[in-house]
């Protein structure tokens, strides 16, 4: 186990380095620069800006300096766009927001999705199954950029129950709509994966044996079938969780949460290099972390897998 984790760590460091170099180079290759405006800046003004942010150095030097300042000072640089903020400030302010609504969305998606999936599989080809499949297909085809304005229309404008946006430190009325909008399509995918995987498991020999022993159905499902049925769900959940907690631009834009998703998209549009890099590294690091967690969960669920 320890050996497995060390091995993962040994791979993670070069992976992140490759991610940094490739992202940096791609970012530079994109046309337009951070300080390009409609009015071409006088050369002296442009030179001052380039010098201030070290952009007058060769690309290799820039990347080297960037990595060194991360390793030695954990400094991800200043934002070119939001000049009063550093990348660390932006992530410190935006990431807790995304983590909160992403975490809740994950919980809702998993609980509802898995329950729907199990119910559908256990009551295969009954009204409950059709209903559950119908709900998940409906949720799947309703993208969050359609769902978000519908939710606001209903809960803010018509019913006046919830505020139309904002975050207010994660006060619960501000969290509800972002969580519904973000979790819905994930919930649908989880329900579908759970259903098909559960159906497969329920037809396996060991379940037949359990039935033959006369065990009650709920016990068969929760004691014997659930763990193996969740294997494909878990491999989906790792990247889905990272996707949720690293932000959704749609949620951030519609609900003005101040989350990190909007910063990521804006940074790309504004060529705000340090913010692009900072959030890329954050998402990359989290992906590596949660893939490792998924692998550990595999071993816990399936005794045949050992590291």
């Amino acid at each position, binding site marked *: 186990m320890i050996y497995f984790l060390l091995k993962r760590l040994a791979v993670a460091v070069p992976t992140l380095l490759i991610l940094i170099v490739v992202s940096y180079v791609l970012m530079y290759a994109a046309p337009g620069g951070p300080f390009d405006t409609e009015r071409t800046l006088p050369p002296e003004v442009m030179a001052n800006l380039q010098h201030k942010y070290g952009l007058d150095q060769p690309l290799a030097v820039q990347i080297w300096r960037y990595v060194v300042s991360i390793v030695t000072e954990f400094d991800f640089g200043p934002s070119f766009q939001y000049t009063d903020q550093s990348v660390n400030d932006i992530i410190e302010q935006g990431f807790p927001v995304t983590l909160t609504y992403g975490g809740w969305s994950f919980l809702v998606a998993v609980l509802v999705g898995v329950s729907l999936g199990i119910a559908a599989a256990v009551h295969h080809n009954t009204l409950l199954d059709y209903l559950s499949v119908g709900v998940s297909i409906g949720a799947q085809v309703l993208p969050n950029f359609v769902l978000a304005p519908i939710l606001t229309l209903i809960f803010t404008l018509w019913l006046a129950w919830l505020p139309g946006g904002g975050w207010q430190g994660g006060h619960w009325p501000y969290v509800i709509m972002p969580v519904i909008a973000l979790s819905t399509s994930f919930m649908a995918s989880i329900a579908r994966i759970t259903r098909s995987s559960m159906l497969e498991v329920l037809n396996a020999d060991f379940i037949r044996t359990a039935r033959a022993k006369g065990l009650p159905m709920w016990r068969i499902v929760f004691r014997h079938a659930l763990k193996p049925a969740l294997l494909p769900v878990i491999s989906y959940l790792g990247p889905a969780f990272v996707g949720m907690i690293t932000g959704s631009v749609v949620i951030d*834009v*519609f609900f*003005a*949460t*101040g989350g990190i998703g909007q910063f990521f998209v804006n940074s790309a549009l504004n060529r705000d290099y340090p913010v692009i890099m900072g959030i890329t590294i954050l998402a990359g690091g989290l992906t590596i972390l949660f893939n490792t967690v998924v692998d550990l969960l595999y071993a816990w669920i399936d005794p045949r897998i050992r590291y």
Partner: protein
Amino acid sequence: MRAGNARTTLISGAAAVLALALGAGALAPAWSAGVHPATGEALADDQTFTYRLLDQFPTLDPQLNQDSSGFHVIRDLFEGLLSQDGDGNLVPGVATAYAASDGNTTYTFALRKDARWSNGDPVTAHDFVYAWRRAADPATASPYGWYLELTQIANAAAVLAGEMAPDTLGVRAVDDHTLEVKLEQPLPYFPAMTTYATLFPAHRATIEAHGTKWTAPENIVSNGAYTLEEVALNEYHTRMKNPLYWGAADVIIEQVTGLVINDDNQALTRYRAGELDHLEPVPAGQFPALKEELPDEATSVPRLCSYYYAFNHSESGNPALHDVRVRRALSLAIDRDVIVDRLLKGGQWPAYNFTHLKTAGFAMPEISYAALGQAERDAEAKRLMEAAGVGELTLKLIYNTSESHKQIATVIGQMWKQKLGVATELANFEWKTYINIRNNQEFDVARSAWCGDYNEASTFLDLLTTTHGANDGRYSNPRVDELMRASRTTQDPSAIYAEVERILAEDMAIIPIYHYANTFLLSSDMRGWPYNNVENNWYARNLYRVAN
């Protein structure tokens, strides 16, 4: 704006402000009785104002600001030498009066003695000197450094280039309350330019103590009518009335909140839900319906910007565009009324010249094709195209990604195709890529727009001089350059501007399409909005909420 006009306005404005201040002296605040001190209207108990911001402001540092979404906040937090009233006229800010000498190359500003920073320090001429040098200092690397060059302050370009020290910049404090500015060339509208953020004062001790973090709410020291209370990035910010502001007795709104709402329709839903007092802009195409539904709240006002298509006059442009007859034909064939009345529907004006028609002191010259009907324009366009003898013509038309630009480009492409047989190849790019392509003249026709940096025609017309940084079509006419140079030293340049507009129309240097209007919704109990300020510069200190 001419110097003479500006001065008269300033003096009468100063007298009005002084009268209000004296009246308010005995019983502060003047509106505590629940009525507006000047209009006598009954005031609401709730004096808060909440409005929509399209984007998070990038900075609150006046010297680093280059963005209109941040400028309105900076205007409330800081005060420059002069400000604007509801009509866009100059009124006293920290300066109460100014005088021009040496043929408009030296300006001396008298500063009020009761101006205070939010920490109680007096605002002095030294704060302006520090701020202006800071804006020019290469170490600050202000992206708006060029604004100093535009103001013609002596040595600005050399300081920015690092060839001269920042303390050689042409500004000095004669004493604590007298500021002297030396210009390289006379600039009649220099006082108007001091209303922009770059030339606001800065509190040296705060900046030196906190570096880039000096604008954080816990650190910032400012001198405007409001102080910064809280900022949640991409969510909201609040500003509170500054009790130390010299004019605080006349400031009625106690708290201002800006909510960042990126999506226009979502913002409209939240306005309807009562979360906002002000929403700008109204979602595209919805203005007529909203005007009918909410006649007291939906408004369209002029906005100092012009929308135009730039021709690529350089070698890389389609050779057919070097023929003035082709350029004219393309312009004449565009039915602006269709674009304004059917697509935009927000009170915009069809444009046949470049300078926005509501620009201060600008008299619209006679532009011959403006007076024709569209049928006559179309006939003339066809005649010109035939005379030019151009065979098959395909033009690359670029625009930045936006539904509205796309609609306009599609409609214009259709008009050219149907009337002149000219094909267009539409290409859209996201903003930075588009800017890059436009700056490198990789187009035949480019969607463009220009918003005035100040309320005077030269802010538009300078753009079409040979060396201007935004002249992406590379239009060059020595006569235009010469006239625009001459306009700077003329007491009344309006005749020159009219001639330049006539030359531009004759040459069809660009295709003017429409002059902007700004559509917004304002809660019906809000008063004091500067409807007649074409720069749309609003100051929260002029707003108030009346009792229902």
